[in-house]
């Protein structure tokens, strides 16, 4: 039961938003954009893996 997945995603989200505002304040906007995209990709990979596991379970359960 990977409840910590949700907390990991939340931590990444908070980290990315803090980094983003930090970088934009210090004038480096393109790096801020890069960190945002990097955080988004990491979170997306984790969520897609979880969704794939869900759909495989459903396919096995409902005998698709």
């Amino acid at each position, binding site marked *: *039961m*990977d*409840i910590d*997945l*949700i*907390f990991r*995603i*939340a931590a*990444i*989200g*908070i980290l*990315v*938003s803090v980094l*983003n*505002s930090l970088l934009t304040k210090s004038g480096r906007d393109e790096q801020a954009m890069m960190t*945002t995209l990097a*955080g*988004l990709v990491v*979170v*997306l990979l*984790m*969520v897609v893996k*979880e*969704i794939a*596991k*869900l*759909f495989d*379970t*459903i*396919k096995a*359960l*409902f*005998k*698709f």
Partner: protein
Amino acid sequence: MDIIQIGVLGIVSAILILIIKANRPEIGLQISLAFGAIVMVSLAGKIGSILDLIDLYMTRANIDGIYIKSLIKIIGMAYITEFAAETCRDASQNAIAAKVELAGKILIMITAIPIITSVMSVILNML
């Protein structure tokens, strides 16, 4: 994974989403997706036992196997369609949600064709 855990986890992830939605709305949506996936994967065992119960009593009432199979398949398709459509609505994409639901209805109709044809043939014979 009883109902208390699921309830608390739901409330906690809702709060987390509120925190993150302010400046990173896309990651907020992904938290709700992750929550939905985790809860449903943990409930898989219980759904399996319910479906086995349905199977058992359907075969005991010697209803034809093809109907049970497509019925259970339709339930699964309906659930996946609802999961995707509600997620799209969460992201305030109502048009996409409507399209997903339309596609789900059409595919369910296709799966239900054998049931429909047998019902129609019974009715036509009666007339």
